[in-house]
């Protein structure tokens, strides 16, 4: 097969793999922020999801229990965020940041106490990681020129969470615009007073949104430690929570554009990995650090100049207090 085509296909394949946690986290943030709760704590929830998923999978040897534990950790933190911001009208940025700091310290500490491996969890065997699905027809099509190998690159071994992320995007688009829950969710993020005077419970709606946020961010973390990776490593989210938030803003809190933003960030990351150590024409070999900074530099550039005015949900960041 053509070398260039292979390269492109490999890039696409790794884009999807890198995009998965971003998509899950960005859509986690979408639920929370469309409901009017700013969630800068995605990073922390992901990290907690990653740690508890890996720890449980390692202890029980079952990846599904690990996934459940990661999700539970995400939900628990989301509810804590809700308790501070919804029930007690706390500052949402401060609460989110506090969660990030809490988890960044707590996860390695617990890992050290439980596993004594320098703040990591033990390397997971294949049986304790979330399985991949081999799409039917890979073998059958192996003989077909071009299409066969291409199909194999893209559809051989697709992790279940990758598929799940795809489902999350579709379902979110439907829920947000076609269902009663979605209508109320969007309303409570724009004008909670309108929701309140329509006789609907503002706080309950926001808590419901945060539970979804917790589930998805826990999954995003679990993907890192028990699907893509094979164990928890200190700071393994490496800013992906913030990157997801940036994708959400870049996507203007809308389903399609947010997905595209995640894919774009993931694509630059895939390119970045590919470029490491490759001698480019004219400039030669670029230092790894400079290349690794590419996705982040792109984020700053895009957010600063190319998004236009990103108008967030009007009530986001504001606790709802009844007017007199």
């Amino acid at each position, binding site marked *: 097969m053509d070398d260039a085509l292979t390269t492109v296909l490999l890039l696409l394949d790794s884009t999807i793999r890198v995009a998965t946690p971003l998509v899950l986290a960005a859509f986690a943030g979408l639920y929370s922020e469309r409901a009017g709760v700013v969630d800068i704590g995605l990073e922390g929830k992901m990290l907690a999801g990653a740690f508890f998923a890996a720890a449980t999978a390692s202890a029980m040897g079952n990846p599904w229990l690990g996934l459940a534990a990661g999700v539970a950790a995400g939900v628990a933190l989301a509810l804590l965020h809700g308790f501070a911001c919804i029930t007690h009208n706390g500052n949402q940025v401060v609460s989110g940041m506090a969660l990030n700091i809490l988890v960044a310290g707590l996860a390695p500490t617990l890992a050290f106490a439980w596993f004594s491996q320098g703040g990591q969890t033990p390397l997971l065997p294949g049986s304790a990681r979330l399985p991949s699905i081999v799409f039917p027809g890979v073998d059958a099509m192996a003989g077909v020129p071009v299409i066969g190998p291409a199909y194999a690159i893209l559809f051989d071994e697709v992790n279940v969470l990758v598929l799940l992320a795809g489902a999350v995007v579709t379902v979110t688009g439907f829920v947000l615009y*076609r*269902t009663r829950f979605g*209508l109320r969710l*969007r309303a409570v993020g724009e004008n909670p007073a309108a*929701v309140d005077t329509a*006789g609907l*419970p503002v706080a309950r709606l926001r808590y419901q949104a945060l539970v979804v946020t917790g589930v998805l961010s826990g999954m995003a973390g679990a993907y890192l430690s028990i699907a893509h990776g094979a164990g928890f490593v200190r700071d393994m989210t490496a800013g992906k929570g913030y990157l997801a938030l940036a994708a959400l803003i870049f996507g203007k809190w809308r389903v399609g554009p947010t997905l595209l933003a995640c894919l774009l960030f993931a694509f630059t990351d895939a390119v970045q990995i590919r470029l490491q150590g490759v001698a480019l024409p004219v400039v030669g070999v670029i230092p790894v650090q400079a290349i690794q900074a590419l996705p982040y530099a792109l984020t700053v550039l895009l957010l600063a100049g190319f998004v236009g005015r990103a108008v967030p949900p009007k009530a986001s960041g504001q606790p709802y207090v009844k007017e007199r």
Partner: protein
Amino acid sequence: MTTAPSAGEPPALELCGIDKWFGANHANVAVSLSVARGTIHGIIGENGAGKTTVMSIVYGYLRPDSGTVRLNGEPLACRSPADAIRRGVGMVHQHFMLVDTFTALENVLLGAEGGRLIGPALAHARRELERLARDYGLEVDLERPVGELPVGAQQRVEILKALYRGADLLILDEPTGVLTPPETVHLFRVLRALRAQGKTIVIITHKLREIMALTDRVTVMRRGRVVDTLATAATKREALAERMVGRTVPLTVDKPAATLGAPVLEVERLRVLGADGRERVRGVSFQVRAGEVVGIAGVSGNGQLELLEALAGMRPVAGGRVRLTGLDLTARPDLFTAGGLRRLGVAHVPEDRQKVGLVTGFPAYENLILGHHGDSALTGRLLMRWRAIKARCAAVMDRYDVRPRDVSLPVSGFSGGNQQKIVLAREIEADPALLLVGQPTRGVDIGAIDVIHRRLLDLRAAGKAILLVSVELDEILALSDRILVMFDGALVGETTPDAADERRLGLMMAGAASQS
């Protein structure tokens, strides 16, 4: 025109001894009143009289500390708006409770979706709303985001929301504050049509004129209490005003004839861009002379705000010429700034006193010196002379009757009227040659309106020039020597209070008639 309640028919709404405290503030004191079915009932009172509070309790938005609410003789559990909505109560709040990014249809649907999916309900709601629109003259564009609709249409969406939920008792809180005169006429027609269908309507307002024009009975509230309930036909505006304020208030101010001096402000073909980059003031020319009040009438949002801000140096001028006592400001960008104009003797009472005119977290004395920090009587070489500042503040508060007389109280602790007196005092005390004043009595109660109007006329008598922007036609008519009508960024008419025909003014404000 009212069908007298037949014997034995319970009132549509009955309140018994409603009490409500906000902290130390007793907002409702044993409020009892009853509203007969099929009538329009007015509730009138000054700001802070507890009108909105008591109706928010009926709607379940606030909970009473004690007392009972009955609808058609049956007690109503005031736990949440859901209870009230189920029992057929609808409320149109002063600040609309709409989701700006939603269409009218989605707004109506919110909370009344009828199922987990909104598809079927959308179709049903569209048919139902089209019927309501036909029956009551409540036409709105159902498919556009309501944030893009004019306020009159937004209000119709609010009424539709209530009717769609089957409201029999409709409460409207200050519904005409944002409407043009023709829109107000339209609204009143809708309300009368609803009454004819047997609906009961409660309208909260502080405008005597509306009470007289629309209601069957009227309840007057003052400081949280019901003062009186009267048949509208059997009372007069003066009597209602007296009950509202608790003392006799003159509803008109005496205005001596103007002694005109030289032109102070000359504006030629002025153009100003709005915050969104669109041209909001489009080639406006006029002048204001010493000893004259020029009133700019118009519905809010027709460029008055931008005009005033540009003249106050807060917004750049996009074209045209502005002269102040002969000095061409447009040629002197160094002086055409908020600070420069202040030094040239221009004072500005901004439309939005809380955001622009005051630092609400600061005490009164600090607010009274905003913009005058360089005054040598107030500032030494290094330190502020706080004692002198406070003494001056106390004297000014006396002169302008600011209550309470507490120089150290944060401005957020004063009522709207007293906040406005503080702004006005600061600007007038600077002894300006020209005073720019926007909406001087918005959200201000009748007693304070009187003080504010008198101070403005004192300034006029002292030979100063005043440019007044107001959406209150009564205020424009009472204070102005000349009236300019602004519509869509242009001056569309000029008249004097004596020659003014209110109907024609209203049409001009709505852009329907130009100067003849």
